């Protein structure tokens, strides 16, 4: 979380647990965060500067890259809830800006 407010990201993770109705907590872990729920813990670290990802998410012994906060949230939720079926509809705000 080198170029983002780490407190804001941790706050987002904590609020996300509440929104998903998942019991758990979020702790500071170096420059990242540790999400703990039951016996499961998920570690989130900033990606190395030369990586194409922005975040590295480690859950169940496996590390995966996340390209954005939206991807980060998806990975954390999938790790917490294996039955979570994410909505695969993608939003295309097209055009991003009006033509005139």
């Amino acid at each position, binding site marked *: 979380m080198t170029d983002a407010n780490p407190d804001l990201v941790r706050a987002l993770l904590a609020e996300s647990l509440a929104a*998903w*109705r998942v019991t758990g907590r979020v702790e500071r872990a170096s420059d990242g965060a540790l999400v703990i729920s039951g016996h499961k813990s998920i570690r989130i670290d900033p990606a190395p500067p030369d990586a194409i990802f922005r975040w590295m998410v480690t859950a169940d012994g496996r590390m995966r890259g996340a390209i954005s*906060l*939206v991807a980060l949230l998806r990975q954390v939720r999938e790790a917490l809830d294996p039955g979570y079926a994410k909505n695969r509809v993608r939003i*295309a*705000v097209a055009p*991003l800006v009006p033509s005139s």
Partner: protein
Amino acid sequence: MTDSVIPVSVLTGFLGSGKTTMLRHLLHQPDFSRTAVIINEFGEIGLDHELIEASQDSLIALTTGCLCCKVRTDLAQTLHDLLQRRDEGRCTAFDRIVIETSGLADPAPILQTLMTDETVASRLVLGGVVTTVDAVNGVSTLEREDISQKQVAVADRIVVTKTDMAGSFPPALRHRLDALNAGAPVVTADHGQTASPLLSGAGLYDPRTRSADVMAWLTDAATGHAHHHHDVEIQTFAIVREEPIRAVTLTLFLEALTEHCGADLLRLKGIVNIAESSRPAVVHGVQHVFHPPAWLDRWPSDDRRSRLVFIARHIPQRWVEVLLAAIDAEVAAVSAK
């Protein structure tokens, strides 16, 4: 006539709440002389359409079965057929469509079809959702029937009917409606007649004037005030942002909302100050489907803040606020590189 965008109004409300009476009255108004009406009735033999008398310039189509369950096929096909007949000059060149849902219909899939079906979405725009509520039985119906709560929650305008029978607009009903959807104006009807225009100006976006009746539904948004009621699951709240929002931030924000909220996001509507544009964008979503933003020619007032109104179930306002702030911070950081 294929170049014009046709507004579609959805008239919904629980069984016996007075939809057909209201529609019958509306179709006698001069403004509704060129209206195509789609009436959905639950059951193989419908009766409602027999109760409707329309002018010769109006057109009535009938679907049976539960519209929300068969919406992907029946409604889309009916709309497509209507448009084709209009284009080919085989019927009156109607300039609006009214869909009367069955009393048991969930309006959300109907709205989604209007926004997403590729055969009709480019030709139609949601003109607004009008929901009828019975003054006599409304409180108990809303207490008992989840679908009636949803019908009220997604409304752009609420019509309390049968006040002539109830003798008044019951305070308990007003309280209940406020808890479910404080942003929607409430009018009363006497024998299906109201003193206020019902379907005009009820929607988010008027394609003819390229304006939005945002002031009507942003009444409470200016304060960011939330409306909760401890005994109802549905709540309304507004997110207000002073600073313009980047287009990419908005895209990612909407994507995260739809991914994580799904059916709990009953409706989202808002006007957004996009950083890259001087024109405001009107966004509109139902559950996991969002309409492409409509760009207004100008701001409707001097208030240039972004205002997003949520009608939701089990979605904490705080999470939505932090989500937007965090995504915006990330997009700003990436943009600065």
